[in-house]
Structures are given as C-alpha cells and as structure tokens.
C-alpha cells in the first residue's frame, strides 16, 4: 500500500536536477513538499469558487464557506478533537503558541508563577513564554534533557511545584528527533494543576495524534510541515478553555455585534479568527489531511522508522560522524542531526547542495539546545513520506567526499 515510488509521482518538485544532479530533498522538518492534490485543490478553488466566507448570500460565498469549514472538520477528525469548534485556524504553529501566550497567558499567569518548558524546545515555544514572563513577573524554567533529548522525569516531578501554571513542550524535537513522553508529561502536569500546551509542529505530521487520548489542553500545528500550503496553522484548544478566553486579534468575523463603545464576541472558533481567513490555505490543508489519511498515519510512521533505521546504520559508517539523538529508531521521528569531525555544518550544507542534496545546517531555531550540546550548529537531514533509502545512500556518499575534501 505504502509505495514511495507511487507517492513520489505526486510531488512534481522532487523531479528536478540541481547542479546537474537529481534533487535529494532532506529538509521536510523545515517544510514539507506538497502533493498534486493539494496544489490542484487550491488552484481549482481560485478558478471556480473563491469569495469571502461566512456572510455572503450568494453561491460562490456559500461554496467557499462550506469548503473552508469542511477543512476544519477534517482537521478536527484528524487529531480526534471532540468538536470542530476546538480547531482555530492560524498562520503557523508560532502564531498558535502566541495566541495562547497572549489570550490565555495574559489572563492566567501572574507574578511568581512558573512556565515550565524543556531544553529541547524550538524558539517558537520559548520566546513567547519569555515575553509573557517578562510582562507578568512570572519565570520560565526548563526541564533538563540528556544529550539524546530524553527528559529527566524525576526532575519533572521536582519542578512541578504549585507555582507552575503552564507546561509547554514539543511532541518531537526538531533537531534530535526525540519523541517526548507526551502522555506522561501531560498526566503529571495535570496532576500538579498545570495547563499543558504541546507543540505539535514536528509530531503531528509524522505520527497519529489523538488530543482526547492525550488529554492535552492546547496543541499547536503548522500546515506547511504536513503536506499543506504555507500560511496556515492550527490551534487546538479544549472547548471550555477556549470559551472562557478573551479573544486575541479583533475585528471583523470574530464579533457578533459592535457599537461605538463595545463589542460582543462570536461563537467558537470564529472568536479567534479575526478578518478574512486564509481560505484557500485551509482548503489545501484539508486536502493534505485527506492525503495523509489515505496513506494512513501508522504507515507513515512505520515508513519513517524503517528509513531512520537504515539512516542510523548507513550514516554511522561515515568516518568521523557524530550522530545526535536516540539510537532506537522507534524512539525518534524522521529528523537526524549530525556533525562531521571539526567541519562546520555550513560547509557540509554547501557541499551537499552542490551535489543536489538539500539539508539544513545551523541552530535550527533551537539555540538553547545547541548550547546544551556544546556546538554552535549541527547539520540535519529530515525525512517524510517521499524519501527513500537511496537518498540516504547519496547523503552518506557525499558526506564521505566532503570529509576528504575538507580534512584534506
């Protein structure tokens, strides 16, 4: 069923040459490519259906509204939300987290409170909390992780004192690939009376995620990392929490009534969607979810475990390589960071690019983690549904060449 050759046919971008070499795209953790059904759905939308949504009394607008709201329902089902009202469209995972930091944080976090993060977080799940802390007098604490990104669960118990109002952690490290023990973190945080936000930017595209089973309070997702278009993200929130939150952005769409002096908010989820939404993008993301469902998220996960097993084996043969993250491929997602001797990751990336291989090099928006690892930068290869073992081979071969070239 899960046939990479067939899948690759749906991704036109992969079939190109870079510097005369076939493109090997290994940067899906930064942003995934898009399959034809997603690209075509948006194209079709603009050619046949576009109009502003929700208020229009004419067929284009009614069709556009239905398509937009239908996408929301698909996404709600994909993460097993209780209701589509719990799914808010944003621009990206970053905006989703900021929405919570502003609209929930500004009203629940006070001086003396603690916001607990982990040491593997992406800047998107650090800086909004630093800002909230600076404004409110709260403080930010970090759950320590070991050099493979595994959380110190004993430390969690100690850190979860009664000042902790919010625990925000990533489902999967975007650098080390480590999958965090979400259920346990959530359950213990709840037991300690904290609200929990999970950054699903890396996890949701790669593993089946059930917000009800996890019992998570907030979940942030980026559309562009899960085969969807740019410009669309998701904030899931438990309904009763979203209900009592004030709005974040205000304006049209999110109001029921406005007078010169006051305004009354619209129902969920529109209370949090001010102005004309990213309509085509929501529709595109809905189709991306259809595509992932068709592949089946368990098969997606298995594919990445297989590929990662192979990558761990093959890459460890490269002399001088240092592979970061868990050794066990089932304990990690499809991203792997590495360094090669004393060579700077930027040089690796340049040389790989010259051979048509796209990886990422730098701090991957996780500077505190790199400070912990004691390196300014790492190189990172990351996989998705369209990647295959032969691409791992290419990567390993060129890394071997690079070593020889740079070490001379």
């Amino acid at each position, binding site marked *: 069923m899960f046939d990479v050759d067939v899948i690759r046919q749906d991704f036109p971008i992969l079939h190109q040459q870079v510097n005369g070499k076939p493109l090997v795209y290994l940067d899906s953790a930064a942003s995934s490519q898009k399959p034809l059904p997603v690209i075509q759905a948006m194209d079709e939308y603009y050619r046949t259906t576009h109009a502003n949504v929700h208020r229009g009394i004419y067929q284009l607008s009614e069709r556009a509204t239905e398509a937009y709201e239908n996408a929301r329902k698909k996404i709600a089902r994909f993460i097993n939300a209780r209701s589509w009202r719990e799914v808010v469209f944003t621009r990206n995972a970053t905006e989703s987290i900021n929405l919570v930091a502003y609209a929930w944080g500004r009203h629940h976090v006070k001086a003396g409170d603690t916001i607990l993060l982990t040491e593997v977080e992406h800047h998107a799940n650090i800086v909004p909390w630093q800002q909230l802390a600076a404004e409110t007098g709260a403080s930010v604490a970090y759950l320590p992780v070991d050099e493979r990104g595994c959380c110190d669960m004993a430390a969690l118990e100690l850190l979860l004192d009664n000042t902790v109002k919010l625990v925000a952690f990533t489902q999967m490290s975007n650098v080390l690939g480590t999958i965090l023990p979400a259920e346990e973190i959530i359950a213990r945080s709840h037991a300690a009376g904290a609200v929990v936000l999970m950054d699903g930017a890396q996890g949701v595209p790669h593993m089946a995620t059930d917000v009800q089973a996890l019992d998570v309070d907030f979940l942030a997702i980026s559309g562009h990392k899960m085969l969807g278009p740019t410009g669309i993200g998701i904030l899931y929130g438990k309904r009763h929490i979203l209900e009592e939150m004030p709005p974040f952005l205000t304006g049209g769409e999110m109001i029921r009534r406005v007078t010169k002096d006051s305004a009354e908010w619209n129902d969920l989820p529109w209370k949090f969607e001010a102005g004309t939404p990213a309509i085509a993008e929501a529709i595109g993301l809905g189709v991306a979810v259809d595509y992932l469902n068709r592949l089946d998220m368990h098969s997606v996960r298995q594919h990445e475990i297989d590929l990662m097993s192979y990558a761990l084996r093959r890459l460890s043969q490269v002399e001088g390589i240092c592979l970061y993250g868990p050794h066990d491929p089932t304990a990690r997602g499809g991203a792997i960071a590495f360094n090669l001797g004393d*060579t*700077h*990751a*930027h*040089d690796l990336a*340049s*040389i790989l*690019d*010259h*051979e048509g291989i796209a990886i990422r*090099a*730098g*701090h991957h928006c996780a*500077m505190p983690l*790199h400070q912990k690892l004691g*390196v*300014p*930068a790492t190189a990172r290869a990351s996989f998705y549904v369209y990647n295959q073992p032969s691409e791992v081979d290419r990567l390993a071969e060129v890394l071997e*060449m690079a070593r020889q*070239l*740079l070490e*001379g």
Partner: protein
Amino acid sequence: MDDFYRENILDHYRHPHNKGELAQPTHTHQEDNPLCGDVIRIDLDVNENDVIDQVGFSGEGCAISQASASMLTEMLEGKTLEEAKQLGKEDILAALGIELGPVRLKCALLSLKVLKGAVYGLSSLPDDEDEDW
C-alpha cells in the same frame, strides 16, 4: 565537486594566514554570526603613518568565514587605514572565487564587517549599504 570549494579556499582554511592575536593592537574588533556561531576578531597594529604594520585574526567557524578572514588579512598588509576602508564585498568575493547564496554570504563577509568595526569604531560605522532595491 572539486571545482566548488576551490583549492585556494581550502588552503586558507587549512593553513590560515595571520592567525593569532596581537599583543597590543591599536585597533581591535570582534563580531559573531549567531546563525552559525562563527566568531571573528581582527587586531590591527597601525603605525604613526596610518599604515597597517601588523594584522592578526582569531576566532572559529566554517571554512568560508575562516578562509575569507585569512584572505582579508593578506590584503591588509601594508595598506593605510584609508585604503583598508575602501575594501568591499567585491574584493572578498573575488578572492573566494565561488558563488555563494545569501546565508553563506554572511559567513564570507563576517571578517569584512569586523574590519569595518575595527577601523571606523562602532559609533562612526557607515550604514550598511546592503539595502539595494
């Protein structure tokens, strides 16, 4: 592949010229590029005729930033401060002799930025002319 990181880059990277700190530099400046962790410091010894007597660079980073720093210090030897101020982006790129994307350009130009900081002093640094439309 071999034509990409050309021999001269690799040479400068493996065997940098003027690597090291000066004991009592008349001018010194350091900057880093947080994106990649590259750090470059440049020390100058400028004599009473405004001529650069000695130059040293230190720091660490990628082959491009290290090689271009080494190349830049070579260019500085025996130049006056005024002449040093005239050095620009093109001089570095010509010396490297390869095409670089915007991220790597920052690596390549870090040492030039540090040099400008050293010769102008931070307060009188001319505006970045990187604003071309």
